[in-house]
């Protein structure tokens, strides 16, 4: 009887050690820290703006959770590598300035959904992503740079961005 209870204890403790071992040594180990706010300097060069935008797209913006880099079968959201070309095309179709269209896609994404995709993108100037003006312009620059000419700059593009934010606020979006 005592031997049985001892074996039972061994099973309980052994399994817990085993599961902790898998967690420690079989799974990749990284922490997820809250993102830091990026301060964009006035008059930042276009290349630097694109580089900051890329950094945000792949980290704080969490864009890669849905967007693949290259086109994939069954992808949830448009591929990043060609998104500049696609956005420029859509802007022309909708008779919008390229710059305005890119900002609309970031802060008021439900205004226009690319064919074949669902309305699932959140406005990223709001919580939980909460990108600031500079960060949003940097992301826009990076997206434009994927196959199209970059037309945004900081702080010159702030009024165009604010215009789109105001449109989103007026419609009372979540």
């Amino acid at each position, binding site marked *: 009887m005592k031997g049985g209870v001892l074996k039972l204890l061994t099973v309980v403790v052994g399994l817990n050690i085993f599961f902790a071992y898998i967690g*420690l040594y079989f799974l*990749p180990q990284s922490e997820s820290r809250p993102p830091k706010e990026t301060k964009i300097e006035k008059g930042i060069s276009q290349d630097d703006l694109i580089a900051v935008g890329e950094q945000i797209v792949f980290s704080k913006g969490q864009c890669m959770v849905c967007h693949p880099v290259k086109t994939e079968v069954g992808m949830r959201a448009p591929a990043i590598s060609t998104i500049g070309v696609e956005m420029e095309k859509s802007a022309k179709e909708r008779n919008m300035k390229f710059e305005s269209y890119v900002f609309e896609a970031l802060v008021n994404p439900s205004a226009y959904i690319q064919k074949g995709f669902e309305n699932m993108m959140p406005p990223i100037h709001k919580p939980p992503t909460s990108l600031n003006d500079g960060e949003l312009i940097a992301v826009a620059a990076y997206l434009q740079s994927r196959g199209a000419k970059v037309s945004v700059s900081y702080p010159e593009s702030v009024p165009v961005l604010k215009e789109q934010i105001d449109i989103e606020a007026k419609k009372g979006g979540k």
Partner: protein
Amino acid sequence: MADVSPSKSLIKGVIKLTLFLGVGFAVLFILNKVLSAPTEDGYRFFPVIGSRVWVWIIAQLHLNFAAFVLGVPIFAVSMEFMSWRRNDERLDRIAYDFTKLFTLAYTLTAAVGTILMISLPVLYPKFIDHLMKILGPTWWVYVLVMYIETLVCYYYFYSWKQMKGSKKGTHVAIGGLLNIMGITMLLITSSWVGYMTTPNPHGVSETGELINRWQAIKSYMWIPLSLHRLFANVVFGAGIAAAYAAYRFITAETDEQRAYYDWMGYTSAMISIGFSLILPGIGYLLGVEIYSFNEQMGIQLMGGFFAWLWVMQAILIGAILMFVNYYLWISLNKMPGGERYFKYVKYLFIVNLLGYAVWLTPHSIALSLEEARRMGAYHPVLGSLGVMASKNTAVVVSYMATFLSFTIFKISNKEPIVSWAKLGHTIRAAVIVLSTAAAIAIGIYSYMVTSAVRVKVLSPIQFGIFFLSIIILFVLDTMMYKGAIVIGEPRWGKMPERSQYALIGITVTFTWLMAMMGYMRSGGRQFWHVYGIVKDTSPDAYLPTHGYAAVVSSIVTVIFFALIGLLFWSIMKLEKVADKGGAQT
């Protein structure tokens, strides 16, 4: 132990609960006076292990006990009802034993709950103030329901023997009331968690001001989370009851005890596994609500930082299925005629193993989804097996194999006498083959469609086929084996001791899984106390490594089993004392 009169038990219950609450409020008051003021942004720090780990451990322990005391009454009362209608003394005994377990576990639940009640406002005063501002009245309703539930629970248990016979119906109704109270408590606590994770914008503003309390309660995940917890509580409660039976089997001194606890272990394990079949479906509903609230949170939970923990989940559920199958295969030995089915075991083992392998294959061996996306490619073979299309298929096939292990155990000591038995066997084989083929075909087709079609259409069809086929098989066997020749009754108690370790294995793995899934659900909020509304600005506002989370989950599980072991031991001690008392009179 059940010799306390029902009325005295009510007084005992009220005193106990009031004592716990009184101590809780008193300690809270003293600590707030004695401890230094919280930091500017509203935090105090627990020594050595930090506030987060402390609250993590205590909250998970409390949740485990709460799950147990809310889950077990559901099937205990159902069994009492059946025992009453069928006049079955054995069912009445097992229902009573289950009731004994959860009644005595109430004290431990309340003790851990009191520690949590003290810890949260002391360590996170600003956040708790916010919760009280938004959902405060629900806390007072919770306290009221807790009193009623405790009174009903104590009365239900201590009046068992007095209310046998003509009052049995009333006693069952009291059990029903107990479950209503339990479900009410579950709904209240789920509303708190639901608010923190998926706050309803109609209930609270972006700046954290209350707009409408009912809307704040009615968050996106409130009902699906409550349903998921309700069924998971039954699975967990039955698992703990199976562990209790295994413990009693191993420590049994007579053949009669071994036979009874073998049967109790089997019954509990099958309740646990039976209800677990519903969980993926309700989990799916929960997922849909999380996605409706915020796609990012949904995807982050399913495929972002937590992607690897789903691989861990696959390892754990696969292990549970392996333990269950192993237990059922060993059980064939105690069934007269069971040896006729030994030949199928190796095939079922292969199917389970293959399903398990696909299930735990990761989508990429990169560190994170972002890294995989940057690489732009997945492994040519593993990449295809690591996606939802193959995993859902593997889950369905593995569950089907487990259901067949259960079926062959159930029918192994019987011989059908109906004239269409041969046709029945053919239909059974056809249902198994066709449903498995359909699940695999849908799985392959899932690779070719958009994620929306895969998630919203094909996955539900796949699980629908599985449920439909097990219902057909269940009905078919019930009809086919009606009045069947029984080769021999199961030789309860004639089980090797190792079978009981499989039962313990199921429960330990399930407890660990609960700890990990609880962490994922909570971690889905990332660096927010209330997602998008109240930011976590403490030094703990980050998600730790998976290894760290795994170690905490193991610590919680070991502490929980130490406490549960203590409970089992106390029950045996009390029984011995009661037996001695009985012998003297």
